[in-house]
Structures are given as structure tokens and as C-alpha cells.
């Protein structure tokens, strides 16, 4: 069976905080749930499904469902890093389509900024993670693993630092209109390539922000969505995949979007050329270029050319992306950017984006997430949504 138009996104909320040392992580999860319920016009007693990932405390759904005192029959704690929430949406739609849930809440929240966590700290999942003994001694961190993918992409395809920089330039053009964005200053290609080198070829401005905060989405059956007071946003297609190191036979020039993208497009019955707005995971500038290629917005190796000259800037280029400023400028709560990707795509479809970045008559949007690390193991998830 297909998920096409079987479930709708009826509530969204992005926490306005970017630094929350005085709030607990559980509290932030509940606050974004509260916000999304208000946005949808629903009560917490309406919820019968819940999903969260590893950013939630304790055993995830057990801790959070008890803390918020929800009564659910669908629960999901899939954790593929920052792409988890798009997968939660896909699973929620499956539950709704098969009658296992009517209204599903998905939350994300965290405080990496207050806790001093960032992409320059090794991720140590403990010796029971089979890869850890073979990576931790080399001081592999998120930053330098994305840098290694960028370096190989440059080597194979001639991608340049200036092309990478255009991704940040576009994000900054959007962030200037977002009062909540951490970085609102418009930057130039020169600003990016002249910012301090962190791990070559990635400069400081090639990297996303570190922020506290969170976000939530609520899905519901189409009949419920039509009874509410917001534009009806249908899920048309979804796909997910995981890519690893293939037993040492590696190719770091592509991401698992190569698999999740076609799956979502096939289900939706649309092509990349039909997409009017795209939320693309932007942990680093290279992440965007590789995903655009793998999702089919351009040919493999031509992502650098595709993003150059403002092609991702709303009102300027062919493919407006991350019109909230994205992870590169706005917000990257819990070091996991998938949730905000969904939220901005829904804002665009509702016509609720900032007027300066709103895509006119935006009827078809894509949200894509990458979680984990692009040059070792990562999850990808793609959602395609329409305004009914």
C-alpha cells in the first residue's frame, strides 16, 4: 500500500529559544509539544501516537510519554541522528494509514549549546559499538568526517570552496528575515572562504550553528486534518535508508539520499523538477551539495555548480531552500536538524514563511534529513508534501 495522502501534517512548532540553561530537556520536549498542539488546535488527550529519538531523556518514549502523561497506541524511538524525525513522520503515516493511530506527535529537543556539545567533540558510543575502537583513537569528530567527504568530492568532481560557500550565502540571505535566527548577518562568498579553517576544506562558516531548543510536528488522519483550521498538508511520499562503510569498500562521494529520495519521489508520483521548495539538511555546506545531487536536483558531481550564483536563494534561484536560515544560520537544536527541516517545509506550504522568503503559491515541497556522519554511517530520510 502507498502512504500517498493517507496522513496530514496538522501541527508544527519551533521553540524560539536558542539557549536554555534553565530548562530541562524533558521540559523542552513538552514545551514544543504544547506549541504544536496549540498550532493544530488539538488537546494532548487527542494524541494516540508518539515518537522521539535519542535526544529525549531516559528510554525515550517511556520517559516522555509518562512525563507528559500521554495515552498512546503507537510509539516509535527510531534513532538515525538528525534524520530520525522524518522517519518518525513516515512511521506515523504508516500507523495512521493502517488504523493503528489517529493523531501522532513527534518531538525533538536538546541543549548542546548549554552543555558544551558540538561537532568538534568525538562521539563515543562506548566499546560495544563495533566501530568505536577503530575510530575513536583517530579523534574522528563530526566536523572532520564531513570534511573528508568534502575533500573527496572536490577531488572527484572539482567542487570548489567558493561553491561550498554559496550554500552558506543563500542560508544567510534567508536568515536575515528570521528574528529567531542565531546568525542574521548576510555573508558573502569571500566572508566564508576567509573565515578560519576548521578542518580543510571546511571553514568556520561552512559549519552549522550549535543551539539549544527543539521542535514538534503532529500528524493526523485526513478527515481530522480537514476539520481543523489550518491548510491541509498531505504527505505524498516518504523514503528512508542507511549507508555505512560497506565492509571497507568505501565510496564517500554520495549519501543514502540516493536511496531514500527515489523511494519518496516514486511514492509521491512527482519528480525533482516539480519541487517548489526544499528543506535540505545543512549540518555543513558540503552536506547540501551532496544531497541535492543524490536527490536528483542535478547530476552527480554538479552540485557545486547548481548551488552557485544564488540558485538556492528564494526569489533569486531555481530551488529556494531552508528559508528559515536552516542549521547553517537559524537553529540546529540538539545537534539534530531534521525536525526544523519539516517545520519550514510546512510553513512554506501553508504560506506562513516570512513574506520576504515565501515561495509564491508553494504547493509541493520536499524535506530531507541526514543523520549521523556522512563519511562513516548515516541515515537519510526524504518526505514529499503538498498543500491540498
Amino acid at each position, binding site marked *: 500500500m502507498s502512504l500517498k495522502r493517507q496522513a496530514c501534517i496538522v501541527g508544527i512548532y519551533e521553540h524560539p529559544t536558542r539557549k536554555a540553561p534553565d530548562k530541562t530537556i524533558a521540559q523542552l520536549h513538552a514545551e514544543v509539544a504544547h506549541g504544536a498542539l496549540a498550532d493544530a488546535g488539538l488537546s494532548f488527550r487527542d494524541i494516540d501516537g508518539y515518537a522521539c529519538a535519542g535526544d529525549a531523556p531516559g528510554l525515550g518514549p517511556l520517559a516522555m510519554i509518562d512525563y507528559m502523561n500521554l495515552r498512546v497506541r503507537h510509539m516509535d524511538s527510531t534513532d538515525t541522528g538528525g534524520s530520525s524525525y522524518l522517519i518518525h513522520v513516515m512511521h506515523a503515516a504508516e500507523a495512521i494509514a493502517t488504523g493503528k493511530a489517529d493523531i501522532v506527535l513527534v518531538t525533538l529537543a536538546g541543549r548542546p549549546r548549554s552543555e558544551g556539545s558540538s561537532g*568538534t567533540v*568525538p562521539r563515543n558510543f562506548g*566499546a*560495544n559499538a*563495533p*566501530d*568505536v*575502537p*577503530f*575510530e*575513536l*583513537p*583517530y*579523534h*574522528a*569528530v563530526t*566536523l*572532520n*568526517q564531513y*570534511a*573528508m*567527504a*568534502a*575533500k*573527496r568530492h572536490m*577531488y572527484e568532481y572539482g567542487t570548489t570552496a567558493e561553491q561550498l560557500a554559496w550554500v552558506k550565502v543563500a542560508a544567510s540571505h534567508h536568515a536575515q528575515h528570521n528574528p529567531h535566527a542565531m546568525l542574521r548577518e548576510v555573508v558573502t562568498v569571500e566572508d566564508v572562504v576567509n573565515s*578560519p*579553517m*576548521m*578542518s*580543510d*576544506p*571546511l571553514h*568556520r562558516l561552512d559549519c552549522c550553528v550549535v543551539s539549544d531548543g527543539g521542535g514538534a510536528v503532529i500528524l493526523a488522519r485526513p478527515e481530522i486534518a480537514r476539520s481543523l483550521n489550518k491548510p491541509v498538508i498531505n504527505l505524498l511520499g516518504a523514503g528512508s535508508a542507511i549507508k555505512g*562503510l*560497506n*565492509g*571497507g*569498500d*568505501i565510496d*564517500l562521494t554520495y549519501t543514502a539520499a540516493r536511496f531514500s529520495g527515489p523511494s519518496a519521489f516514486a511514492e509521491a508520483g512527482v519528480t525533482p523538477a516539480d519541487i517548489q521548495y526544499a528543506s535540505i539538511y545543512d549540518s555543513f555546506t558540503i552536506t547540501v551539495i551532496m544531497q541535492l545531487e543524490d536527490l536528483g536536483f542535478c547530476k552527480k558531481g554538479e552540485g557545486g555548480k547548481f548551488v552557485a550564483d544564488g540558485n538556492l536563494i528564494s526569489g533569486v534561484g531555481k530551488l529556494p531552500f531552508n528559508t528559515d536560515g536552516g542549521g547553517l544560520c537559524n537553529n540546529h537544536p540538539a545537534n539534530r536538524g531534521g525536525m526544523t527541516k519539516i517545520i519550514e517545509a510546512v510553513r512554506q506550504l501553508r504560506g506562513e514563511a516570512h513574506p520576504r522568503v515565501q515561495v509564491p503559491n508553494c504547493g509541493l515541497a520536499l524535506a530531507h534529513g541526514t543523520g549521523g556522519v556522512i*563519511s*562513516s554511517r548515516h541515515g537519510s530520510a526524504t518526505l514529499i508534501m503538498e498543500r491540498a
Partner: protein
Amino acid sequence: MATIYQDRVITAPVATPENQPFYDAAARGELLIKRCLACGEHHYHPRAICPHCFSDQTEWVVAQGVGTIYTVSVSRRVLPTAYAIAYVTLAEGVSMMTNIVDCDLDALAIGQAVRVVFKPSEGGPPVPMFTPV
């Protein structure tokens, strides 16, 4: 510009029942990888069951310890000293995450030939790293 390699404190890998022979060999100055008796393919990092065909008939083999840099990045603002993280493709065909050491880090390039050296870890077995030949 040159960024000459400096030794740093290396976090010790934790040996497990599955990888103990790898670290025992590292202490002898040997780089072990695994080969599958069923499909003949090498794999890395070493596992009990072949990730290419899922056979449980895998054996340890001593790698030649030479290869080429698949990708490399010099991290400058992560630790007090700059260091080069890389994937090296061994002569046997498998690629492994590593550090490139004992050289000018700024001169490193994809495709460069390297050979294995072992660096002491803090309170653990030595770990395989690579240096330009």
C-alpha cells in the same frame, strides 16, 4: 606554509573478544585485516562474520601495511595541535580510518602513497597510523 606533525595523546581503543587479535598484532607491529574463506574478500574493520557474504568462515591475515590516501583533512581547531584524519585504501583493497603522522600535514594529498606506523595510545595497545613513503 608547513604544519609539522606533533605527537598527541591518543585515546586507547578498547579491545573486545572480537578485535583482540588485531590489537595483539598491533603490539607486534603488524596490521591485521580479515579475509573471508567463502567469498575471498577482505574486510575492515574486522568482524566475526563477513560483511560481504555473511559467511562465518573468516580468517585474520597480515596486511602489507601499504596503501594510498583516499581522503584526508587537517583539523586545526579541534585539539591544541593540528592532526590529519584520513581514510587510507590498503593494497588489499579495503579502506580504513586513520591518522597521517610524522610529516608536513599541509603537504598531504589524495592518492599519496603511505605505509603503516604504530603510535602508542594512552594506557592501551598501539594503534595503526600511516606516514608518506
